[in-house]
C-alpha cells in the first residue's frame, strides 16, 4: 500500500521531521481512506436518523450498529457483491448497517424498513429495523433469534465449496454473547470437518455486552476465537475500532478463504455506542468512538480537511432527513396482504380457502 502524505524533504530533514512532527503513515490509499470515512459517516448518520425516527414515534423499535462502523464498512467494501454461489453470501445479524451501506444500500431502504412501509424491499413492513434482506447481493434475511445465522452460513458455504470456479465465501457476523448458543459450535464443527472444510468467514463483533449482561461475567475463555483454535480454524483478533487495521486484516483473511476454501474466525473488539436497542433507551454512551477517532486521524494526516469532513456529515444528514420525509409519504402495508408469500409463487396457504 502507498504511504500517504509524507512530506517530500531531504533525507535527513525528512527523518527528523518524521520523528518529531510527521504523523504515523497510513497504510491505505488516500482515496480509500476518504471513501471509508464517508461510508462510516453515512452509516452513523443513518443509524442516528433511525434512532430519531424511533424517538419521534415513527417506528416501534430500533436496534442497530453505531460503534461498529470501523469493522462493518471494510467488511462491506471487501465483500464480493452479487447473486448466486460465485459471489459472497452474507448472513448478518441486526447490526449490519455499516456493511450494507458500504455495499451500496440506499439510506431510504433502511428507513422504509424501520418505518414498516409497503415499499420496504427487505420485509414489506413485516420485520424490525436492521433485519435486512437483499437477494441481489446474497444478503439472506436477518433473523431475530441469536446465532442461527452461523448455521445457515454453513449451507451456502457448502454450495460454494462445490461450485466449480467459485471464489465466493459465506460471511457470517454475530455478537459476543451469542457465541454461547449451540449454533456457534455447530458452525465451527461443520466448517472444519477434514476434507470438507467450508469457505466461511465467521466474525464475532465483541462489544463486551449481551443486552445488560457483561462479557466478563459469562466468558471463561480468554478470547472467543480461542475456541476456534481447537478446530484448527485460522483466527485473528482485530481492533474493530480501527478501520485501517480492520480493512487490512479482513482483506488478508478473505483472500485466504477465497484461495484455500477454508474457514477463518475473526474477533473484532468494537464499541456499542447507543446500547443494545431502543429497549435500553438508545442513548449515547461514552465509549471509544471509532468514527470520531478516524476522522481526527485523517484530519491530522491531511487526508481530510475540516471543511470537507463537515460537508460529508451535513450532506448525509440532509439525505437521511429527506429519505425520512419521502418514506413518510409512502403507503403502509395493507392488512389483507398477510397471506401473501406464506408459500412461494402465490400459492394459497389460508385453510379457509382450501
Amino acid at each position, binding site marked *: 500500500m502507498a504511504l500517504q502524505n509524507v512530506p517530500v524533504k531531504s533525507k535527513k530533514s525528512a527523518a527528523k521531521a518524521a520523528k518529531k512532527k510527521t504523523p504515523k503513515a497510513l497504510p491505505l490509499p488516500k482515496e480509500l481512506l476518504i471513501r471509508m470515512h464517508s461510508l462510516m459517516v453515512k452509516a452513523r448518520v443513518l443509524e442516528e436518523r433511525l434512532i430519531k425516527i424511533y424517538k419521534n414515534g415513527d417506528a416501534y423499535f430500533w436496534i442497530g450498529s453505531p460503534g461498529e462502523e470501523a469493522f462493518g464498512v471494510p467488511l462491506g467494501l471487501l465483500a464480493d457483491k452479487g447473486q448466486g454461489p460465485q459471489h459472497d453470501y452474507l448472513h448478518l445479524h441486526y447490526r449490519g448497517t455499516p456493511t450494507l451501506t458500504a455495499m451500496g444500500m440506499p439510506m431510504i431502504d433502511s428507513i422504509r424498513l424501520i418505518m414498516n412501509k409497503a415499499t420496504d424491499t427487505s420485509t414489506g413492513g413485516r420485520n424490525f429495523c436492521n433485519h435486512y434482506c437483499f437477494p441481489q447481493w446474497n444478503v*439472506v434475511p436477518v433473523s431475530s433469534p441469536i446465532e442461527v445465522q452461523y*448455521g445457515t452460513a454453513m449451507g451456502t458455504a457448502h454450495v460454494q465449496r462445490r461450485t466449480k470456479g467459485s471464489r465466493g465465501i459465506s460471511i457470517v457476523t454475530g455478537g459476543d454473547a451469542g457465541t454461547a448458543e449451540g449454533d456457534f459450535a455447530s458452525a465451527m464443527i461443520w466448517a472444519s470437518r477434514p476434507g470438507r472444510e467450508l469457505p466461511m468467514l465467521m466474525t464475532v463483533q465483541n462489544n463486551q455486552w449481551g443486552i445488560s449482561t457483561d462479557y466478563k461475567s459469562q466468558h471463561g475463555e480468554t478470547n472467543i476465537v480461542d475456541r476456534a483454535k481447537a478446530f484448527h480454524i485460522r483466527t485473528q483478533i482485530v481492533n474493530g475500532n480501527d478501520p485501517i487495521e480492520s480493512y487490512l486484516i479482513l482483506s488478508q483473511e478473505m483472500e485466504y478463504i477465497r484461495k484455500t476454501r477454508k474457514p477463518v474466525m475473526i474477533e473484532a473488539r468494537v464499541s456499542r455506542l447507543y446500547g443494545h436497542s431502543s429497549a435500553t433507551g438508545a442513548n449515547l454512551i461514552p465509549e471509544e468512538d471509532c468514527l470520531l477517532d478516524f476522522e481526527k486521524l485523517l484530519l491530522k494526516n491531511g487526508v481530510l480537511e475540516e471543511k470537507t469532513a463537515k460537508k460529508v456529515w451535513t450532506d448525509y444528514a440532509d439525505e437521511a432527513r429527506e429519505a425520512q420525509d419521502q418514506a413518510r409519504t409512502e403507503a403502509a402495508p395493507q392488512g389483507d396482504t398477510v397471506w401473501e408469500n406464506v408459500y*412461494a*409463487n402465490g400459492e394459497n396457504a389460508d385453510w379457509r380457502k382450501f
Partner: protein
Amino acid sequence: MASMAQAIRMALHFAEENMGLKDVFGQDVGAPLGGVFTATQGLKTAWNTPLDERGIISMATGIAMTGERCVAEIQFADYIFNTMDLLKIAGNTNWVSNGNYTLPMVVMTPVGAGIRGSVYHSHSFDAWASRLPGWKVVMPSNAREAYGLLLAAIDDPNPVLFLKPKALMRVRGDELIPGEPADQKELKNRIDAPLGDTRHKWRPQWPALEELKIKIGEARVTREGDQLTVVSYGRHLLMCNKVADDLKADGHSVEIIDLRSIYPYDWQAIKKSVSKTRKVLFVNEDTEVTNFAEHLAYRVTQEMFYQLDAAPRVLAGKNLPGIGLHPNLEENSVPQNHDIENACRELIAEMP
C-alpha cells in the same frame, strides 16, 4: 413389490438423476449404513453429518437459500424437537422476506409408534408440524405413495416435511412404482446393499424409474362407503382400511380418506365425503390435546353442523409424556384396530 424404505430410496435416486438433487444428508445417511432404515443406501448424493440436528436443519436451510434442492434427514422425529426454532425460521423465511427467499428443502423423519421403540423412538410429529406455517407436511401410507409424495416434495419450492411412518418402512405395497421390477427378489438384488464387508465395494443397479408426483394437498379415497367417513394418514390409514373391510363383512359401509397431506389439507375431499355420510372420525397417533385432527373436527362442526348426524370425533394418542416400551403400555397409548373399530361402530349406531 417395494418396501417403503426401497421406495424412498428409489425416489431419491430418481431425483438425483432427474431433478437436480445434489444433497441427501443426515446422521448415518451416507455410506456405509445408508440410513437406519436403509432408505438412503446406494445414493451418490448421500452423505453423513455430525450428530447435530440443529446443524442438519441449518445446513438444509442454507443450501436452499442458494436455490438448490436438498433432502435432510433427522434420524427419528423424537430428536427433531431441538430444531423447532430453526423449523420456524425455514417456514417463515419466504414470508418475512416478502417473497425474496423461497426455500426448496425437504426434511424427512421417521415418526410414530408400532415398532416397540420406547419413549424416544415412538414420537409423532404431525400435530407439531401442523403448527409450522410456511411448511407443507405430508405422510405416506404405502410405498408407492411414498415415492410419489417424496418426488412432489422435492419438486416443491417450499419447505416440506416428509413424515415417514416408521412401522411401515419395511412394509411392501400392493402397487408397482413406475419402472419398478415386478420381481421382488430382482429389486432386492439390484438396490439392497449386502451385509458385511463387501458393502463398501457394492454399487446399486438402479431400475429405469419413471416420474410419479402425487400432488401435495390432494387426498384419496381408499375405501368407499356411505355410513361414516374416517380420515387418517400414515400407518393408521392401513389400520382404518382393515377396520372398514372387517365392518363390511358385518354389513357396514365406511368411507376411508387417506389425507396424505396434513398441510395444506384437502378440505374439499373431507367435505364431499362427510356431506354423504353425515358422520366423521379422525384417526391418528399424535397426542390428543391440540391434535391437528381437532382443527379438522372443529371445521366440520363449524361449516357442516346442520348436515351432521353425530358429533365429529377424534381418536388419537393419549395425552401422555411418552410411549412406554412394554406392548401393554404402547398398545394402551396409541389407537389400535379395536379402538378404531369400536369408535366406528359407536358412530354408525349413533342417532341424532
